């Protein structure tokens, strides 16, 4: 990669930039960090936090693999093991996978669509703080031996008041509420940003595929997350104030939990996958130096995946004895979703075929993604079959299946995305050499860990067991899986080392080290606080390839206040100007009030009496107008 120094190109008017920098930059110091409303600053800390949770979740998995390495092992007892597997699932689902995808989206989407920030910068900050509070709450509880121990799905009655005494499941319910609030505000954030803040000329059908993916993901979050947020509140009420939602003796229903949970839980998988598909499209285009084949098909596939994912939830409940006919409907729907996923795979392969790929590390991860994801996909078709699923449901076959899907569909594209966008975020390249090692260790490790689990499941090994008897003969394959897990750990360790070393010593990246086509590569690396000195105008799907020289842009945004351009929904015609708020501490205070409310509520209903006024007060502080701008905004006449 030839790194082009940032100053080798002619620059815009220096004074404009200086003033923009003055207006948009974060206040220095710790205070600045706490009050920042910059999507890049928040996106970075979001990504880092999510990666820390990824490592924690991975370590939990490592300890579990150690326990299962041989029959009747004694690394973890049943009580600790149950907390470990629950923490692993919750961490990966709620604290890593969804947040990290959202975080990358929050960082990249404004840059990709030529915006200066997300639509609601303070809400963005609030979302991060709530997410962080939820993660800390869960992990502090875990260290206090109050880690949830009924699985990330926490089926009642096991998770109900009678069979899970103490506060462990309340921690489960409430920490989910934190992360769902964070995910929901981020979804609103992304949708409005994508709808209303696109660069002039970036019509919907010129949006980069990653932006499409984030848009679809945000809509799925918007419609899926309220279900889990609500159902966990119902559970908390059953446990704390003795409601009877799930008590069959008083007209409640254990299956109500499963329906409500999986109506969220299945889209959740696609919420995690969809941004990954977006990453892949971007990397494929750049590394084959041609636009991804079949843009309309790709977009329609994303949309139909998003839509169909809401019709599959019952396939998690095939063993509950629902009527056969209804189940076949869900089999059909589950199989149907394979088609749009398949179309995307075929389009990428066609694109690679037509181009001349460069085998950079991001591209390696894309190849790895296709292999692992396709294996997870075909086993997904198998478990969509009612009869077959009733055999392998809740066995290690399913464990193998969804790890293939999630690691293939989310972790590999994510790591590819890291190698791809790291230069943009930090200004430095990650080491390709370490990257190759990282890739191959992970690729071999993941397959070694999870492939034997298919066989274990068919042999009858159930999920969520803390041990197994020697006589079952499951020992050797489990040992193999544990060896694979060691490789995965080493692979992830290499990645961490690569990031740590490259942050300081990596080669300078320049604006556009890969020769890519989307707008984020038009600004410097790392981008300035205001992203673009002039908002670019877009005339096609690959603006940087279509405009090799100067980019067209608009002028007229004020540089002394945080002006952003609002465009129309479909055609992205400039429509109005909007002023963004300066840095503020209120989102953090509101998040603290939220935390006080949620945490005290699981100990006493009086928590509402303490927490609600605090929350309303902080919201008032947030919403109350500060720093009136007398120059621009016409004061409304004070009519008597």
């Amino acid at each position, binding site marked *: 990669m030839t790194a082009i120094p940032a100053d080798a190109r002619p620059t815009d008017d220096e004074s404009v930039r200086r003033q923009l920098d003055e207006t948009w930059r974060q206040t220095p110091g710790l205070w600045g960090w706490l009050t920042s409303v910059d999507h890049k600053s928040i996106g970075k800390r979001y990504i880092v936090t999510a990666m820390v949770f990824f490592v924690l979740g991975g370590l939990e998995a490592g300890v579990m693999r150690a326990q299962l390495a041989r029959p009747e092992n004694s690394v973890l007892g049943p009580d600790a093991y149950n907390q470990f597997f629950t923490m692993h699932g919750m961490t990966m689902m709620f604290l890593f996978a969804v947040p990290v995808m959202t975080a990358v989206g929050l960082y990249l989407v404004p840059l990709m669509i030529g915006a200066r920030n997300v639509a609601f910068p303070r809400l963005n900050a609030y979302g991060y703080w709530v997410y962080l509070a939820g993660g800390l709450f869960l992990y502090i509880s875990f260290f206090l031996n109050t880690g949830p121990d009924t699985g990330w799905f926490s089926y009642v009655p096991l998770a109900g008041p009678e069979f899970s005494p103490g506060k462990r499941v309340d921690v489960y319910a409430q920490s989910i509420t934190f992360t769902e609030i964070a995910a929901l505000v981020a979804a609103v954030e992304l949708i409005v940003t994508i709808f209303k803040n696109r660069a002039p000329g970036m019509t919907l059908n010129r949006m980069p595929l990653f932006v499409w993916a984030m848009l679809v993901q945000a809509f799925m979050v918007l419609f899926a997350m309220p279900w889990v947020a609500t159902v966990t509140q119902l559970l908390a009420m059953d446990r704390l104030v003795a409601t009877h939602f799930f008590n069959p003796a008083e007209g409640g229903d254990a299956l109500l939990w499963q329906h409500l949970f999986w109506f969220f839980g299945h889209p959740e998988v696609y919420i995690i996958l969809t941004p990954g598909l977006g990453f892949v499209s971007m990397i494929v285009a750049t590394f084959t130096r041609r636009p991804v084949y079949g843009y309309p098909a790709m977009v329609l596939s994303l949309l139909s995946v998003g839509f169909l994912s809401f019709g599959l939830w019952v396939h998690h409940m095939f063993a509950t004895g629902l009527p056969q006919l209804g189940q076949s409907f869900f089999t059909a729907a589950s199989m149907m979703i394979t088609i749009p996923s*398949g179309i995307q795979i075929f389009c990428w392969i066609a694109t690679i*075929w037509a181009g001349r790929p460069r085998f950079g590390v991001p591209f390696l991860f894309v190849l790895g993604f296709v292999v692992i994801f396709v*294996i997870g996909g075909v086993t997904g078709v198998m478990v969509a079959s009612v009869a077959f699923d*009733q*055999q392998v449901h809740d066995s290690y076959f399913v464990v193998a299946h969804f790890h293939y899907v999630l690691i293939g569909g989310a972790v590999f594209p994510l790591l590819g995305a890291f190698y791809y966008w790291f230069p943009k975020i930090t200004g430095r390249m990650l080491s390709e050499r370490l990257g190759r090692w990282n890739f191959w260790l992970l690729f071999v490790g993941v397959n070694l860990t999870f492939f034997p689990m298919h066989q274990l499941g068919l042999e*009858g090994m159930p999920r969520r067991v803390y041990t197994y008897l020697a006589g079952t003969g499951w020992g050797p394959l489990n040992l193999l899986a544990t060896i694979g897990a060691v490789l995965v750990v080493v692979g992830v360790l290499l990645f961490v080392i690569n990031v740590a070393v490259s942050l300081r010593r990596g080669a300078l990246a320049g604006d556009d080290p890969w020769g890519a086509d989307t707008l984020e590569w038009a600004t410097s690396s790392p981008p300035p606080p205001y992203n673009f000195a002039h908002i670019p105008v877009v005339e096609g799907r690959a603006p940087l390839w279509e405009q090799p020289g100067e980019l067209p842009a608009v002028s007229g945004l004020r540089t002394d206040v945080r002006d952003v351009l609002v465009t129309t929904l479909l055609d992205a015609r400039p429509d109005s100007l909007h002023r963004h708020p300066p840095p503020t501490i209120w989102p953090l205070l509101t998040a603290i009030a939220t935390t006080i409310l949620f945490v005290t509520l699981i100990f006493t209903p009086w928590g509402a009496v303490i927490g609600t006024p605090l929350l309303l007060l902080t919201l008032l502080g947030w919403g109350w107008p500060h720093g009136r701008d007398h120059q621009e905004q016409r004061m409304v006449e004070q009519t008597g």
Partner: protein
Amino acid sequence: MPLTLASTLVQQAHTSLNPASPQVRLVDQLGTAMFVTAAVVCLLVFAALLWAALRRRSGAEPVADGRQERPMKTAVLLATGVTTVILFVFLIFDVSVGRSITTNPGNDALQIRVTGHQWWWEVQYRDSLPKNWATTANEIHVPVGRPVVFELRSTDVIHSFWPPNLSPKRDQIPGNENSLWFQADSAGVYRGQCAEFCGHQHAKMAFLVVAEPADQFEGWLARQRDTAQTPTDSLARRGKDVFMAASCVMCHAISGTSAGSRIGPDLTHLASRRTLAAGTLPNTRENLTGWIVDPQAIKPGVKMPPNQLSGPELLALVAYLETLK
């Protein structure tokens, strides 16, 4: 190792890959067909990917001309079409298998009620006359070649009944009665395990299904209906007294005696069973003793408490329990 059955035997006795009923055989055929197709699909996709990626490693810069569009379009459409066809065939196959394994078992079927408890299985053979009921635990005997309908219940949390050689699983949900049926093809001892996470000892909540010829089964059932034998030798008689005076009697039933509690497994014919602690230990004298003294060492979290009995008491108690054939 606790399970002293030869390990290969158990492997064969607890796997969906060794079908022992028409139900599982059908599902196995479906699974095999899907597996083979899936493997072929995977290999084709990988081959296409590798070819696409590697074919021009050392070629010239690609020419972005219209000639590429046509083959790409054809290939993508073809692949999508093939995918759709495969899925459609799978769907038909799945629905037909689903219908066959859920057909009506017929009137001749044997009814067995299996109730999941944390962490053991209560097994009840019901009859129109309640005196003919037989209750046992963790070991289900079925006649070969006759449909058996299982009434699946739970009194605490959700469990899932899964003998992989004989039947796909079905959840036992409190408040929602479920059922399934299968028919064992050949005599043998099969193993099953709870498949829905149910708390601390989900891992050690197994059971055996003993499929035997009809006459043998009827003989077994008749013996299970009997009340417990009254011990004859003095040690066992003393053991019975220990049982009735100690904490055992609070949770366990032995028919024909004053012990009638249904909290733990029915022990009327304990000694006739092959395993202890829900398929965890072979039913030997040593294991039984160890289990009574400290069940928490074998299944941490299990509901049975460690028992403080003196040496002679324990000896007598075990001797008594061993008479419960």
